[in-house]
């Protein structure tokens, strides 16, 4: 513990000094006058960037910060364990818990950010591969890799060095992400958070890396693997492949994010590495990962026989083939989207199969009814079944991602009575209203939406002009359903005709992104609940310690 405190406080000292000496929020405004500077109090402030005046923005940054900050704790525990050479099971168990909490917050923060982008930026999507978005994704991916490979260490005493490396990487990427956001070293939509703290962060990053890596080298002999691999087809190698894909994703995203800087340094030209690059590179990696999400848990620890492989894979694969054929017949020709949904079916069925198998065993042996069996099963091993729920959340996320391939959009000039068609929707202008509030002036158009002739209510996208910052923004109107969102933006006013410029998107399956995020969140919570077995073991340990204490006293 003492070194944990020391490491955490070192991080704290760095951030406190940055806040005090470099970017002090308590700076005061003064006006020069003949009698020296006089305190100055302007009548009004600049105003918060209007794009940020949105409800999920209140919670998105704190979530991300909890994630970023929280990863300092596993790092501190890892370093302390290295310093004290106490590299047994204890620190890894504590660290795993402390990784899940920030991992959950970071993931939730990222999704809330996506939700904000979707509802405010008005381009019909939620993820733009902006450098700062990537910066939040990187530690999340590295943390995910750690959460998986830590299991190999707990169960088999392997991969000890690798796990320390992953913790260092995750923490490093957190600081690096903050550095990217606040230094403005790469141009980003998040430029509103820039200040001159870049060099300090660069030095801190250097110190973190030097300290942790040299410590690791000094202690590497204490991290010898306790076991060997029994078979290539085993859960262990499944986790290795999982780590391979996740780290490849980290590398690809990191590389794309910093490539503009490298290009500037090497060839003197700043290039842009934007969404088209990341979509090409990340989608195949993402699909491989999705495949492993389903396949990995079907492999047994140590060794999986061909029989069990066939038993476990048959049903999920059959279900996936059925879904795949059905999708193809119904006209899905976008390859990545098809592949994604195919794999989603595979993974979802493989997870449900695990629940079903476990519950049936309990039914047979314990005579419990099905629901009761599912509940007991889950509570008995919350880590395992919570993990499955997280995987199910990831599947739903991918269902949402796949929907993006089928986005439809249109743009038109509208006033009362004009109609706009997109897919099988018709939007008819009802009225255009203008108004004034103390914060902004606005223009709003009411649109009557109908699908295949059935009225579905109205959408009222508006456009605001914020007085303090003199900036216009759009407020998107969304009609969401599980199948698709109708997403209307009032993009402006046509100078020639005076009509409103309205953009309408139909975004299939987007709702599943938010649902998937929520399921992931719930699954993580579930995995953090101490399982019955864990509680019993903790009681045993306590009883033993108490016994030792008594015998010492005697």
């Amino acid at each position, binding site marked *: 513990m003492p070194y944990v405190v020391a490491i955490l406080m070192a991080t704290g000292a760095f951030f406190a000094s940055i806040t005090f000496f470099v970017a002090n929020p308590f700076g005061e405004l003064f006006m020069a006058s003949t009698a020296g500077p006089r305190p100055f109090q302007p009548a009004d402030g600049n105003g918060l960037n209007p794009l940020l005046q949105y409800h999920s923005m209140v919670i998105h940054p704190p979530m991300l910060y909890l994630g970023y900050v929280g990863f300092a704790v596993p790092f501190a525990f890892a370093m302390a364990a290295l310093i004290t050479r106490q590299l047994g099971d204890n620190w890894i168990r504590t660290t795993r818990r402390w990784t899940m909490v920030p991992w959950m917050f970071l993931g939730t923060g990222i999704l809330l950010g996506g939700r904000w982008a979707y509802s405010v930026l008005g381009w019909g999507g939620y993820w733009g591969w902006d450098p700062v978005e990537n910066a939040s994704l990187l530690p999340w991916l590295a943390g995910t890799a750690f959460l998986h490979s830590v299991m190999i260490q707990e169960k088999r005493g392997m991969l000890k060095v690798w796990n320390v490396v992953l913790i260092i990487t995750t923490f490093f990427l957190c600081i690096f992400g903050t550095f990217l956001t606040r230094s403005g070293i790469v141009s980003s939509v998040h430029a509103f958070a820039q200040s001159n703290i870049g060099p300090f962060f660069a030095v801190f990053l250097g110190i973190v890396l030097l300290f942790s890596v040299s410590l690791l080298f000094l202690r590497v002999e204490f991290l010898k693997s306790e076991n060997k691999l029994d078979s290539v087809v085993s859960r262990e190698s499944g986790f290795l492949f999982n780590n391979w894909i996740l780290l490849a994703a980290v590398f690809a995203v990191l590389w794309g994010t910093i490539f503009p800087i490298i290009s500037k340094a090497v060839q003197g030209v700043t290039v842009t590495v934007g*969404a088209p690059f990341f979509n090409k590179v990340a989608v195949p990696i993402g699909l491989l990962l999705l495949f492993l999400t389903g396949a990995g848990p079907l492999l047994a620890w140590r060794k999986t026989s061909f029989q069990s492989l066939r038993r476990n894979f048959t049903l999920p694969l059959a279900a996936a083939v059925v879904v795949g054929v059905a999708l193809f017949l119904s006209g899905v020709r976008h390859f990545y989207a098809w592949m994604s949904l195919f794999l989603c079916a595979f993974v979802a069925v493989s997870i449900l199969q695990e629940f079903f198998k476990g519950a049936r065993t309990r039914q047979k042996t314990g005579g419990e009814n099905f629901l009761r069996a599912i509940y007991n099963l889950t509570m008995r091993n919350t880590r395992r079944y919570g993990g499955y729920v997280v995987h199910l959340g990831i599947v739903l996320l991918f269902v949402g991602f796949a929907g993006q391939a089928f986005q439809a959009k249109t743009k038109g000039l509208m006033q009362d009575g004009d109609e706009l068609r997109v897919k099988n929707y018709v939007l008819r202008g009802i009225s255009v209203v203008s108004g004034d509030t103390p914060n902004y002036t606005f223009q709003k158009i009411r649109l009557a939406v109908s699908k295949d002739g059935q009225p579905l209510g109205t959408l009222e996208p508006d456009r605001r002009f914020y007085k303090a910052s003199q900036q216009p923004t759009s407020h998107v109107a969304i009609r969401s359903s599980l199948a698709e969102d109708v997403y209307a933006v009032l993009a402006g006013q046509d100078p020639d005709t005076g009509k409103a410029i309205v953009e309408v998107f139909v975004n299939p399956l987007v709702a599943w992104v938010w649902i998937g995020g929520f399921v992931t969140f719930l699954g993580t919570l579930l995995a953090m609940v101490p399982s019955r077995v864990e509680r019993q073991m903790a009681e045993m340990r306590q009883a033993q310690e108490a016994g030792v204490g008594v015998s010492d006293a005697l």
Partner: protein
Amino acid sequence: MRSRLALVSLFAFATLALGAGRARAVDPPPTVDRIGERVMCLCGCVAILNHCPHQNCSMHEEMRATIQKAIAEGKDENAILQLLVQQYGVKVLAAPPAQGFDLAAWLLPGLGLAVGLALVVMIVRRWRKPGEIPATAAGGHDVDPKLLAAVEEEMKTSGMGIRK
């Protein structure tokens, strides 16, 4: 051996299937919206041209007009992208061109994936022990064997993993 084959073929299937996504049909004729997804808006918003959040953004309109004109002249998508690069510089492209030094941007992620795979395969090979699974428990533990046995028994009955 059969199980290994099965896993390898599953992987091969997944990888091949992913690779097949590359081979697409002929590009449809260029539109402003299609090209607008591939270039950046240079008004300072750091967004894809189609996604610029600023209304009545002058740069946005100018660039779209340029693209519209080039389409009207019958240029194809690549020629229009070339034209935009000439006019605004290479930073207008939303992804670096796959040539010269910028090729590195495209190659390294794939290379990283390949090197990672090679590493995993290497590790698996080195870790693999020849022959049968020995029945001994994890060595080097300074634990009372009786206690260890009790804990393992508990874990076995509770369905948690066995450390062996």
